[in-house]
């Protein structure tokens, strides 16, 4: 049985059912109905509240994360399902509660790790090495890219963006061409984006129609989601049964090192239920999986199931985030064209200084994502113009002149795992289902702060080189919030990490628990480091490999 239906759980049930294995899938949220729930193609004026939500919630900071039209189901705060944060720490924990999890709305950035990403400790003495190499994982990335459908291009001598199995990327937009020219001048590499969008028909999915609204959920499944692309087809096989509104509490074990099933709360009836299974695969998200393991305490596993090493919950990482925007006069007065494209930017900048670390004051690197264009107007779109103009005709004039002339950059960088960043069970608090909650501890170190300052300088350079001006606050004012709040990039990983040695890791390289052979963890929990490559594709690849491994172990009778 599989707990969680995002990229890890979705891949697992698809692969297992293809192997003929019968699966139960637990999802803590409801079943998804894309035709009913995805708000793709709606205009703001289709609704009396125009996207501000009932009573103007968005104006009071109480709207949905990423806005009303996005298909997020969940967020950083869930009613009745709290978590706590230790004094002196900051952390925001995003949880999805819907079939498909975060894959329904995520950015679809799909970057395979670089060879150097698997052995970071060997390279610079920080963090830890993975128990696998790039050569071992490369075929699994190939399979994942071919199945998910990822755009991109192959390059020679670009270690930060290895070659893969790519679909044709869409042509760059005008502001992106200016960014590229700026980057060329500054020695920054700028290449076609790698996103999980099919630009040609693929296995029953029709090609992208370039409405730019992937975050609202894609009715045509041209943008990958585990719900539409893996789980719905698996349900049709007749070998998958989905239990929705099912909140896992703990894993049951037999006292002889084997998992026997899972206890969960049926949210509809608030009654506890048990499912017995030959094998248990955790894919509940890095921190939720850690929580379930830590809450599964027995005399055999006094620290929680599969946690003899004590690493479960430790080495929590998020991605280092920093953003800066600018105004580009060269774009003023340009004839408007459709800039929606395939949702995200058509170009991106992979890390370009992989061999220049002796000249930098921070380790590892980051990639850069680009924003800009003539976006669909929404709540708040023209407030800057309105404030600058005051009132009257000036508001229209300013909005018309400035529309489409702004660009934004978001840095997404690698954090070094540290001892101060972890989650544990808060013994004093339970959620509304009676399950003890997580308490978070988190600290950025100088490594991350210095990387964010490098991002800031780089983005300012790119903006000014294209004749633009930075429109963010000045550096002196921004210093106190010049790095993303931990958890807000939603790349939290590392809490059930894999490794060669069972004394300092919970899983082997197949995502299989060292201590419980019929227990696997296939979400972001298994990560050993958190490179500047958004995690989903790596979860797809490792989950596929884990599911194949599990099916084979079952066939051999080892599990």
């Amino acid at each position: 049985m599989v707990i969680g239906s995002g990229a890890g759980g979705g891949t697992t049930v698809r692969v297992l059912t293809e192997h003929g294995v019968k699966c139960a899938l637990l999802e803590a949220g409801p079943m998804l109905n894309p035709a009913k729930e995805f708000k793709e193609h709606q205009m703001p004026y289709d609704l009396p509240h125009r996207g501000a939500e009932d009573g103007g919630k968005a104006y009071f900071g109480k709207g949905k994360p990423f806005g009303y039209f996005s298909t997020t189901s969940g967020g950083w705060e869930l009613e009745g399902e709290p978590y706590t944060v230790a004094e002196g720490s900051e952390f925001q924990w995003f949880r999805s509660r819907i079939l498909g999890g975060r894959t329904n709305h995520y950015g679809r950035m799909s970057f395979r790790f670089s060879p150097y990403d698997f052995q970071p400790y060997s390279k610079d003495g920080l963090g830890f090495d993975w128990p696998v190499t790039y050569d071992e994982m490369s075929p699994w990335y190939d399979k994942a890219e071919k199945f998910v459908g990822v755009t991109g291009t192959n390059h020679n001598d670009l270690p930060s963006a290895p070659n893969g199995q790519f679909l044709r990327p869409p042509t760059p937009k005008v502001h992106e061409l200016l960014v590229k020219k700026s980057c060329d001048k500054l020695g920054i590499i700028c290449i076609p984006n790698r996103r999980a969008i099919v630009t040609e028909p693929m296995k029953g999915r029709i090609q992208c129609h370039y409405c730019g609204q992937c975050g609202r959920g894609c009715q045509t499944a041209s943008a990958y989601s585990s719900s539409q692309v893996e789980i719905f087809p698996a349900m049709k096989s007749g070998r998958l049964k989905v239990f929705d509104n099912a909140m896992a509490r703990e894993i049951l074990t037999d006292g002889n090192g084997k998992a026997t099933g899972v206890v969960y709360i049926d949210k509809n009836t608030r009654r506890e239920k048990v499912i017995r299974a030959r094998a248990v695969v955790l894919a509940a998200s890095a921190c939720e999986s850690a929580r379930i393991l830590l809450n599964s305490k027995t005399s055999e596993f006094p620290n929680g199931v599969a946690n003899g090493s004590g690493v479960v919950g430790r080495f929590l990482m998020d991605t280092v985030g920093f953003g800066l925007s600018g105004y580009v006069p060269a774009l003023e007065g340009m004839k408007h064209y459709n800039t929606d494209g395939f949702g995200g930017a058509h170009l991106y900048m992979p890390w370009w200084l992989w061999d220049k670390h002796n000249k930098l004051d921070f380790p590892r690197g980051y990639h850069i994502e680009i924003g800009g264009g003539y976006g669909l107007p929404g709540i708040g779109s023209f407030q800057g113009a309105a404030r600058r103009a005051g009132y009257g005709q000036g508001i229209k004039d300013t909005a018309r002149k400035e529309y489409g002339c702004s660009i934004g950059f978001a840095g997404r960088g690698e954090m070094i795992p540290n001892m101060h960043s972890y989650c544990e069970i808060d013994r004093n608090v339970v959620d509304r289902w009676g399950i003890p909650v997580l308490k978070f501890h988190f600290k950025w170190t100088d490594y991350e702060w210095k990387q964010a300052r490098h991002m800031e300088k780089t983005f300012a350079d790119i903006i000014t080189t294209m004749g633009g001006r930075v429109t963010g606050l000045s550096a002196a004012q921004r210093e106190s919030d010049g790095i993303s709040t931990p958890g807000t990039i939603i790349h939290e990983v590392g809490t059930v990490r894999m490794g060669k040695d069972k004394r300092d890791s919970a899983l082997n390289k197949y995502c299989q628990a060292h201590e419980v052979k019929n227990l696997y963890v296939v979400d972001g929990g298994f990560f050993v480091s958190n490179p500047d490559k958004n995690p989903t594709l790596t979860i797809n690849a490792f989950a596929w490999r884990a599911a194949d491994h599990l099916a084979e172990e079952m066939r051999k009778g080892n599990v």
Partner: protein
Amino acid sequence: MSKSISTRRDALRNIALALTASSAVQLTAQQAEHVHSAAAADTKNGKYTPKVFNGHEWATITRLSELIVPADARSGSAVDAGAPQFIDVLCSQNEALTAIFTGGISWFDAEMRKRVKKEFVTATQAEQTALLDAIVAADRQVRERNAEERLFAKAQQYKGFSGYTVNPGSDLAPGVIFFDWARRLIVDAFFTSPIGIKDINYVGNQALSKYEVPQEAIDYAIARSPFKVV
């Protein structure tokens, strides 16, 4: 509403068909017209009855909407775009927001009485814009001061720093706060309406079989950038 959703779904089915046939469909222009004409019929033909505001408040919100986003040669005003209805709908679902508007309107009237012995809505256009000008000036002062205060907080970390002063708040503060709310909702209502989206000339939300960027736009921007070929 149900009509617009079923239209959208039909449109999506069309996308699938059209893409299979490998031709582009321009779905949203007609669709937008259709949806909008249905919505407009509610408010224009039949008279809209405010859910929350009395006649005086409604007249004041309507006047503020005209002043903040007036009509011009290219497009209509925020009133044409349905801003007063938008505010009324949200307020009908939120007492805190209603209080902001009813209280703010009363303050505007009191301030106008002090100035010219009239309510805001019965004052002349020149008297109305004089008050808005004063509020916008005070608003700018507040924003600048906030920025200065952040710098001041920062500067305190430096040893030996002294002599920094912050201007006191203005008597117009309640008006500034209300005006900011009114402007926020009125401007949003305008630019999220069919009139505003047409005015700003957003040309997306379409189903395309191929994504293309016009060479004309590329040439235009490059020629105006530091990267122009000399």
